[in-house]
């Protein structure tokens, strides 16, 4: 379970998050929506400790992410993250992209790591791309590679940072299909997304963030179709 309690985050004088409270239970899918610059992505980066926070705390299975004594490298093995710009490693083949972390972080031997990588690549539909370099693939394929790379660490949680925003429209579908698959397998996910229809379809809860505050949170269908907060209504009327 991920518990975000009164989190404040600023970059210098610029306040990004102004007191965020959010709970995500095991097996739940929560989508975070909101305009750009609202602090959605920053919130994700605070959950796996890539960003520090100024106030409040983030607990992952009871472990305080920002406590000095927390082993972040260990904790991050539990929390997978997929990025908007996919960040595939250009100097490694697809298979090496996925098998590297299991090998150097989890200490698996080369063969084990490759078997694991093959399994996850097949899972996301890249079973025929093992020896290809990422730059020879489409954005959608690279994003699925990034998902497989994360899954190979066998995380309990997945943080997805606008993972379809940088894709050509015709490639969005294949990535969303992969996410549907993960949801059906019971993966706990926090998605920052601009895909409202998708958010409504896959999420248990949707949180609307504006200026560093969760203005509205509720059951997915309700938030999209029948928002109670004026700001949510205004935002949705612009994007829908």
């Amino acid at each position, binding site marked *: 379970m991920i518990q975000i309690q009164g989190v404040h985050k600023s970059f210098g004088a610029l306040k990004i998050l102004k007191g965020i409270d959010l709970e995500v239970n095991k097996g739940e899918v929560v989508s975070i929506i909101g305009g750009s610059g609202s602090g959605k992505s920053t919130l994700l980066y605070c959950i*796996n400790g*890539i960003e520090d926070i100024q106030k409040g705390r983030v607990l992952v299975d009871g472990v305080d992410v920002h406590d000095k004594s927390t082993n972040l*490298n*260990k904790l*991050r*093995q539990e*929390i*997978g*993250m997929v*990025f908007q*710009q996919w*960040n595939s*490693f*250009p*100097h490694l083949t697809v298979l090496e992209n996925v098998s*590297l*972390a299991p090998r*150097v*972080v989890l200490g698996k031997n080369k063969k084990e790591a490759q078997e694991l990588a093959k399994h996850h690549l097949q899972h996301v539909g890249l079973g025929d791309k093992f020896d290809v*370099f990422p*730059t*020879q693939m489409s954005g959608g394929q690279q994003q699925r590679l*990034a998902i497989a*790379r*994360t899954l190979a*660490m066998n995380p309990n949680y997945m943080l997805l940072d606008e993972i379809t925003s940088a894709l050509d429209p015709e490639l969005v579908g294949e990535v969303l299909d992969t996410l549907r698959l993960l949801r059906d397998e019971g993966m706990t996910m926090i998605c920052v997304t601009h895909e409202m229809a998708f958010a409504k379809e896959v999420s248990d809860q949707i949180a609307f963030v504006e200026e560093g505050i969760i203005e509205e949170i509720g059951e997915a269908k309700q938030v999209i179709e029948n928002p109670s907060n004026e700001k949510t209504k205004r935002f949705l009327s612009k994007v829908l």
Partner: protein
Amino acid sequence: MSLFTPLSWNDTGFILTGILNTIYISVLAISVGTVLGLMIGFIRSVSTQSINFVLGSILDVLRIVPLIIQLILFSTFVGIMGHPLPPFASGSIILSLYTMAFMTEVFRAGFDNVSKSMGIAARSLGMTYWQSMRYIVLPIGMKSVFPSWMGVALSVIKDSALVSVIGYMELLRTSEQLITRTQQPLEILLGVGLFYFIISYPLSTFGRYMEKKMAI
């Protein structure tokens, strides 16, 4: 017996020594310069402005002052201080530092070329800082600057000729002595030029091959 004797096969050993000494000091300077340049390049890419200013100024001196002046100044200076060094030692120290100064900028660019998000992606998989450096940032960055590294390495081979001024018996000094004896400057300098070409050309070809191989 005449004062000048023409070039003969007996000179082969002498010339060969010159060639080997040129290769020797070049390989040494390139190796030391690469290792030091990699370390200082890394420090430069992660340091604050003030540390960079100090480091940058020192490196600028090494890069801007002509190598021949550095060589003469250094070997004269250690002599005056009462610790004269053999030409090879002075030559290797200065040529290595000179190479280091250029390599530092090459590697610094390499580190800076890798977007921060690559490192973040590696860290998000649970890698430690040094693992993310070792497996992700370093290989990507080094690949991007390989052509510049090759350029510096090739120019060091040519620049090693200047070490002759402090008396190191490398290819150019060998040939100068032969010219004095034989009075055949044209043949000898042509031959020496050819040797620099023979040493450098395979390297530059190898560099182009590697570049092509790495450009995926």
